């Protein structure tokens, strides 16, 4: 690795870091054996964390940050003055293998600016994946960003080598997309999601390999005027219609070389966090988009408390629920109880009647849950309906008194 390659790595890692997706999970178990290299374990591993709290699981780089497109929110847009660089296919392969052998990464997440043409770009991405798999027996994780404007056959080929494909929707509404990303087209993005979703489903049924870890997407939050409600509605549609594994939310963050079409100040990072919590409620807790949105005001989630607590505070007539008899669906709606805690409760109560201290052993969120729960030795009484319940649950940490 010479100095020139190090410089390129710096530029093209910096250019790729605004993509929030990092997962290395969902791939089938696979090993490279005595002649290849690597393995996938199914669960994925985070090999480091940077001081922004994000994990480093895959080598996340762009093949190049030269780009024909001019999307306002993107640091690599045509009209930006950033430093540009370009890797060869072989350089990406060597970097991936070198870092992988040092146990720094689970694999590669490769994306690219659009150069020459979408087809040319997509073909280069596909070639990296094919070289790793076929010439080096690489069994680690490969996530390829799909260029939605590329010809369908290239996407069909990419899925043969990648564990996951993703296409970024970037903005929740077609109108915003037109405004900020003039060369992009919302319907062609969704058409490709449809194509990929269909192939993944067919391959699964026919027991073939095609992007076995599914597909994902990302939406930028806070660059346009979209409400949380409309973002979540879009996610809900994506999960249902295209079988997406994950929707990532990326709070718009100020970039060097920003376009003046964008807000100068970032949205609160808490907004991104609340959207993730809401996304989880949607997928694993049986909530609907409307229920989640009703917890906030005007289509925006409450930034001060998590969306499940917000919903519970507005639906107090449904509480308290009895931890010893309530069904699983209702327990999932109790603030502070996670899905795993609920499963443990359901198993444990078959053998014993649960008291509050038992629940404390099963869940770390009892502080919030106790106002909404009845246990063998506990009834919240009027607590559930107290007007200051919200304040009690989110009281700021007390300052230690100093003598």
């Amino acid at each position: 690795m010479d100095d020139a390659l190090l410089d390129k790595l710096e530029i093209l890692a910096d250019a790729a870091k605004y993509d929030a997706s990092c997962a290395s999970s969902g791939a089938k178990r696979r090993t490279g054996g005595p002649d290849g290299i690597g393995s996938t374990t199914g669960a994925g591993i985070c090999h480091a964390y940077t001081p922004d709290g994000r994990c480093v699981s895959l080598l996340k780089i762009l093949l190049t940050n030269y780009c024909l497109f001019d999307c306002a929110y993107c640091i690599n847009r045509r009209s930006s003055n950033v430093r540009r660089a370009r890797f060869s296919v072989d350089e990406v392969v060597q970097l991936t293998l070198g870092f992988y052998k040092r146990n720094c990464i689970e694999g590669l997440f490769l994306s690219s600016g659009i150069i020459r043409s979408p087809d040319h770009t997509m073909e280069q991405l596909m070639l990296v994946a094919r070289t790793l798999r076929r010439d080096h027996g690489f069994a680690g994780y490969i996530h390829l960003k799909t260029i939605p404007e590329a010809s369908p056959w290239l996407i069909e080929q990419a899925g043969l080598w990648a564990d996951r494909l993703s296409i970024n929707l970037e903005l929740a509404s077609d109108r915003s997309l037109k405004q900020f990303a003039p060369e992009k087209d919302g319907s062609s993005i969704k058409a490709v999601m449809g194509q990929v979703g269909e192939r993944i489903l067919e391959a699964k049924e026919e027991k073939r390999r095609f992007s076995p870890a599914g597909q994902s997407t990302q939406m930028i939050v806070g660059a346009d005027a979209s409400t949380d409600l409309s973002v979540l509605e879009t996610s809900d549609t994506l999960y249902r219609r295209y079988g997406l594994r994950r929707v990532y939310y990326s709070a718009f963050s100020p970039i060097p070389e920003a376009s003046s079409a964008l807000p100068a100040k970032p949205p609160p990072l808490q907004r991104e966090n609340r959207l993730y919590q809401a996304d989880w409620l949607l997928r694993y807790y049986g909530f609907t988009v409307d229920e989640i949105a009703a917890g906030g005001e005007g289509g925006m989630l409450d930034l001060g408390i998590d969306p499940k607590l917000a919903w519970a505070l507005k639906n107090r007539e449904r509480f308290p629920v009895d931890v010893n008899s309530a069904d699983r669906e209702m327990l999932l709606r109790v603030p502070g109880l996670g899905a795993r805690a609920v499963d443990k409760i359901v198993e444990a109560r078959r053998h014993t009647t649960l008291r509050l201290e038992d629940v404390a052993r099963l869940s770390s969120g009892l502080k919030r849950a106790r106002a909404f729960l009845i246990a063998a030795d506990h009834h919240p009484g009027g607590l559930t309906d107290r007007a200051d319940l919200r304040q009690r649950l989110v009281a700021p940490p007390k300052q230690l008194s100093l003598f």
Partner: protein
Amino acid sequence: MRHVELKDGADLDGFRRALRGLVALDVEPDAVVWSGGATPSLFGDTAPLPADAPPVPLPRPVGALIESVVCHRDPERYALLHRLVRRVVRGERDILDHHADPLIHRLALLDKAVRRDLHKMHAFLRFREVRDPANSEDRGGERYVAWFEPDHFIVEATAPFFVERFESLVWTILTPVGSLHWDRRSLTVGPAALRPEGLDRDDRFAEGWQRYYESTFNPARVNPTAMRAEMPRKYWANLPEAAAIPAMIRSAPARVQAMIEAEAAAPRRRNPDKAVAAMARQEPATLAELNRIIRAADPLVPGATQAVLGEGPEEAAIAIVGEQPGDQEDMEGRPFVGPAGQLLDRALEEAGIERSAAYLTNAVKHFKFVARGKRRLHQSPTAGEVKHYRWWLMKELAFVRPRLVVTLGATAALALSGRSVSVLRERGPMGFGDWEGFVTVHPSYLLRLPAGEEAEQAYRDFVADLRRAREVVEGAG
């Protein structure tokens, strides 16, 4: 009081032996004192446990829990596990479901700590490359060494992960509680080690990793608490990239401020023409260009020697679409040259269609088969595989622009119509969207029929279909 002495660390075998004896003698957990090898016995000799006690049958999850908890540093672990096993033996077979039980809760915490430690070792261990000139037959002496400090006695438990992942490399993992060495064939478990010298030696990839780590950090989102929750300080000493963390945090606010203060660049006049033009230019402009792409692409069904492209004049009035190349087609690289192709040739001639004037191709461009000895047995493509190839077929037809598309068999009919077609029931004219179509059987179907009147009739029907197809084209012309 009974005293059981085990080896230091995670002595699973010793514990299993002791446990068998304790269960056989029905010893109360409170009457046992467990000690690691380092602790001298305070109790003198006690009656030895029977060496040949029978195995204790345990539910599988209990066995897995024991294997995990034994790795924990907690000196009480063996006593807790003994209590667990005694309760299982006494009838509480589903004891692990009692999540609220204090013993189960305590063991679950120990188990969780061990699993977290395993996970962190898989994650945070870093190999350094050390060239070993003495051992140059193996990949130029490529060797890797790592130093790691786990919380618990997990070194052996991590071995399967590293062996599986780095089976083709030569590596050594050193820790204060044991070591592992893999020479690409066998694993050696060694004693505790000291931090080796020379790990900081020059390794360009290690330097590259540091640069990557710093570049992938977004200063606008600095959140060290979240980082430390997942990557506590105790791991930093052995993570080369962690050396940069303090400076990254310190400089972050200034970097963000600079970004916000930097005057936003006015959006230049946006002219998407160039990008749109590039997109339009990328589609193959000729059949030859399309064929180049197909030939260079990988089979979407595995195994084939080569892609078999369509054949015939580009302005053909009739396009005939088969299923996929067979054994002979795969080797010669031409469509319809095997037994089915020869039968098709005969039928075309009888129907008055010149083969050389028609465009012949397949819905799927690669041969799919299972190998039986020396023979390669044809396998029908799945519906999903047919769709993988559909875009190419449609492009191909768009270049040829035939007046009629004749599909042979169900696969071709599926490719063109997008639905599953019952060929015998629906044979005859059929609209395929942009194309006027005609559905008939595949000649290989005729070859499979037992010789006799039925087969002869089927062949006559096939020829009659082709003749009708010819009339459709001539009528349309």
